[in-house]
């Protein structure tokens, strides 16, 4: 089956030349991935990350932006390997979301 990432030659519209400055959250997942892949850790290879991105399926692949796909894949591989658990992740996401909401409450 042709993966959602395998785009060479497919019909597409004109190239959108607009660019955005990379945000902190984008550089952070980039940095996390670099550390997890380094010689000291070897917890994820570039091909494991790509495999995770390809496995998102076409709908998610097309909908998510570049570093959202990276985030989904690196997190997924860390779950597979037991480096983190789904329970830890769910609790931590909720905790950060609360912390983030609090930023708007005391203004």
């Amino acid at each position, binding site marked *: 089956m042709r993966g959602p990432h395998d*785009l*060479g*030659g497919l019909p597409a519209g004109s190239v959108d030349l607009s660019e955005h400055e990379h945000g902190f959250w984008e550089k952070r997942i980039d940095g996390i991935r670099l550390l997890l892949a380094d010689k000291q850790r070897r917890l994820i290879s570039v091909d494991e990350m790509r495999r995770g991105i390809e496995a998102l399926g076409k709908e998610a692949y097309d909908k998510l932006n570049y570093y959202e796909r990276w*985030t989904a894949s690196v997190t997924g591989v*860390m779950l597979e390997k037991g480096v983190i658990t789904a329970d830890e992740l769910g609790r931590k996401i909720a905790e*950060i979301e609360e912390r983030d909401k609090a930023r708007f409450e005391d203004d």
Partner: protein
Amino acid sequence: MSEHTHDHGHDHDHPHPNQPDIDSEPMGYYQLMGSALGELLIEKGVITADELRAAIENVDSRSPEGGAKVVAKAWTDPEYKARLLENGTAAVDELGIDMPATHLVVVENTDKVHNVIVCTLCSCYPRMLLGLPPDWYKAHAYRSRVVREPRAVLKEFGTELADDVEIRVHDSTADMRYLVLPRRPDGTEGMSEEELVELVSRDCMIGVTLPRSS
């Protein structure tokens, strides 16, 4: 310095690098996930906050200026150019640019051949030389079309090549990374290496544009 004297207002000085960067909007789901992943990895000692800060600084420190210096040196030093085309990885290492995981192939534009770089499968890019890739390089339209209608795509970048120029597209599918060595523009004979660096844009090293001549 009085950062300890006021404690009202919201938390702008969160002590580790997991703070959201867009203060005006709540974090989206994937930002939350990435933030949670970072904090968990730090709490578990898989990575440290200092390592993460350094990694982010490393990502930030790469820019197209690195590639431009390589190009300008190749334009002014024929022996360096020969080494660069023979073994790109070793030649950029001479300038202090380390390519630890991948090999660099430098492809030279001539009056007969024009090179263009793409990665149709993901977004492989010579990050050590050019920094993070631009949005269009990662997007569907460029990746789909530049292998099939390169001239039409280059026109969208404002680049028109003579019909008899042969276009060589390089699809970075594996362990090589590519850098285009553009042709040195006419009329730049008197310019110094430092002045030439200014003419070399990121996009001309990807092959979608040509270098400026002044």
